[in-house]
């Protein structure tokens, strides 16, 4: 068998391979800024899409629901596809940059749709999701291939912080534009296109491919070979099982907001602040939690992040969700994202070989996404059959059980760690 390449650091780490290893590579900066600009661009659109579709295009409520379902369905398929292409051609930058370019190009279509009545917007919105699905895994793979293994979680933390900053700024810009030019959706899309174009320019100009050596005698790697290699990697199954189970008992943040807004007597003016608060906590904690994960391991941080949900569930079960309790929930939610979102990519990167890095990341994130889709159904059922308090207590118990199981699943015996 060809010797495992994963023990070879992708970047020569120099004399001191540990703490001092370089984390801010040119690729990380380039991808961070690309994500920042692209997220400003896409969140500008996401924030106004309900308004645009229903008021401007006369979508019915159910038309909109159908759009959302399609929007979610396309993502998983293209995520896997993007990972496979990037790995088999060793073209992580090109695949990610293509994904960003597709998304940016769709803004031009949206401008046309906003200006010309008969041009439909939905195909462009779906194409945007295709672009997003394509780019996610290759981008994360490129971050991991550009970073010393000992700094992986920190690198992902920096990236997620920049990404979230863009996600915070986007809606703000969109609403400022709409506030001063009511109904000028085309102007929002033009400005969104400009942010998207800057992001695309950054990735094409500044990101660099990190081609990995592989067994040349085997020729170009086929997709089936990629998946065989991922399947054979010891620990991938355990991680997939752990993240799958965890996401089954993870309540989507949309639902947490919904429960808070339905239970509490908070004034409407606080809600945007709570939403922004979650994102700010995520932004602030993404880097420190990444650094922590590099010191003590990605797995304890990831598991602890999931354990935070137990506290959120219990607070939601037993409090009337006043300002303090709501703030606590949303701060914990931000901390949960900071401890899990980038960390899970780092965790997978530590395990999966460099040849199939993007596919491996795509696989795990799709498992998470599918788990959360089922969790939404489970949660809705529980909520309606046994009521809020019992549902939250049941979920907290389930989460405690699953975190315990995952601690076993992720123990070095089941999922060896190559650090």
């Amino acid at each position, binding site marked *: 068998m060809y010797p495992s390449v994963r023990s070879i650091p992708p970047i020569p780490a120099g004399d001191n391979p540990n703490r001092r290893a370089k984390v801010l590579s040119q690729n990380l900066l380039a991808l961070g800024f690309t994500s920042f600009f692209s997220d400003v661009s896409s969140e500008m659109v996401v924030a106004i899409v309900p308004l645009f579709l229903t008021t401007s295009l006369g979508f019915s409520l159910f038309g909109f629901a159908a759009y959302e379902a399609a*929007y979610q369905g396309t993502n998983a398929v293209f995520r896997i596809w993007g990972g496979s292409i990037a790995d088999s051609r060793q073209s992580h930058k090109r695949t990610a940059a293509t994904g960003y370019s597709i998304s940016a190009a769709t803004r031009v279509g949206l401008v046309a749709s906003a200006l010309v009545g008969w041009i439909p917007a939905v195909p462009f919105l779906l194409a945007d999701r295709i672009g997003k699905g394509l780019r996610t895994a290759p981008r994360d793979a490129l971050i991991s291939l550009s970073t010393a293994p000992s700094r992986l979680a920190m690198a992902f933390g920096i990236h997620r912080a920049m990404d979230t900053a863009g996600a915070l700024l986007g809606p703000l810009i969109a609403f400022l534009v709409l506030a001063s*030019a009511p109904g000028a959706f085309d102007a929002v899309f033009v400005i969104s296109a400009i942010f998207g*174009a800057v992001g695309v320019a950054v990735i094409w100009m500044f990101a660099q491919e990190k081609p990995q050596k592989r067994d040349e005698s085997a020729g170009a790697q086929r997709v089936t070979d990629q998946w065989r290699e991922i399947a054979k990697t010891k620990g991938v199954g355990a991680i997939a099982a752990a993240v799958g189970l965890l996401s089954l008992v993870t309540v989507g943040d949309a639902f947490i*907001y*919904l429960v808070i807004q339905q239970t509490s007597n908070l004034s409407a003016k606080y809600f*945007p602040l709570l939403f922004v608060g979650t994102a700010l906590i995520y932004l602030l904690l993404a880097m420190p939690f990444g650094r922590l994960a590099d010191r003590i391991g990605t797995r304890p941080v990831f598991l602890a992040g999931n354990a935070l949900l137990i506290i959120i569930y219990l607070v939601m079960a037993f409090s009337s969700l006043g300002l303090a309790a709501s703030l606590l929930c949303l701060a914990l939610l931000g901390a949960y994202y900071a401890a899990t979102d980038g960390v899970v990519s780092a965790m997978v990167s530590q395990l999966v070989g460099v040849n199939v890095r993007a596919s491996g990341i795509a696989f795990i994130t799709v498992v998470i996404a*599918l788990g959360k889709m089922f969790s939404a159904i489970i949660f809705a059922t529980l909520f309606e059959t046994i009521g809020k308090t019992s549902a939250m207590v049941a979920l907290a118990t389930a989460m405690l059980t699953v975190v315990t199981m995952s601690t076993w699943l992720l123990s070095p015996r089941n999922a060896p760690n190559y650090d």
Partner: protein
Amino acid sequence: MTDDAQPMSDETRRKLFVLGGLAAVLVVLGAGYFIWAQGRVSDDLADRNERAQATIDEFEDVQRESTPEATPVAAVVAGVSAAPGEVLVINRVPGDDYGKLAVRHADGTRTLLERECVRVHIAAEHGVCVSQNDGIVATFTTTFFESINPQVEIKSYASALPSRARISPEGTFSAVTAFVTGSSYEDIGAETTTIVTIDQIESTRRIRGTGQLTINSDEDRFKNLDPQYWGITFADENEFYITGFYGEEPEVMRGWLDDMTLEPTGWVGSCPSLSPDGKTLVFKEMRADGGFDLVAVDLETDDKWRLGETRSVDDQVEWLDNDTVLYALHPDGGDTAVQPEFDIWMVDIAEGSEPVLFLPNANSPAVAR
């Protein structure tokens, strides 16, 4: 970069220069487009305001001729005046007064009030005004008022676009339908749904959500895990009709607040509205082309017939009296993104009746009784 990387190469510096130039050009283009769009929006609004004013003047002239004893237009009312024969509406004249609550007097003139709503309803001197708040997250505010002396209490929900509002006949409950859009960092898990919230007006506490409804029926479609509800109409302080959607077609359900149960009526349609005498139910029926017909059902005989309105009506009708309904329609060209225009029409529920314009540039009629 803070590490000991080699100094920035000429190549990188050149690229940064190109990027800066590109960004500068794009920013100038974007600013130019924004200023152009802003000018276009305000010109367009001014045009529409002028046209709407002309339509209203013409309408008022016609009304005055047919209303022999025209009541003099009241001075601006501080509270909400809702004397019998007057109808609360929301002003839809594009411009600064768009969205203001207004009283339509018997002679077809209107008095604007200093309160903005997207939907209003009134019964037994209790009113509800649902207003939308601008912001990063769409939120709305439900304001309850007494028709003479507006005591304001506020309830709020996030991420929602309000769409229907009703007060029970004796003014005990208010029910508001809103369209909720999920907001999430994640691609999967976002949800879009309608919520109906029922408030007890005196305590301004939300007492019920449609999540608490159970259906007294064994039919398979009611096992749907994620039913959607919208558009309540109250029969009394307990019984109500509501639209239920269980995955196939929206249908009219009959329900009771005391035990939060529902039973199917068998009518496919949405947004029911019950006549004041409780005898007739009017609701929307989906047409093959996606539009809606208004149909009426006599609750004693179960007779069902189509109303005389042939245009598509997407509204929950309001009853002017036991034989006449009011509803809003977009005038030609009025279905715009910004400050869409509506006209209120009325039609006798007898088959084949001709619709008559009740008030141009207004919607959400609420009849004081």
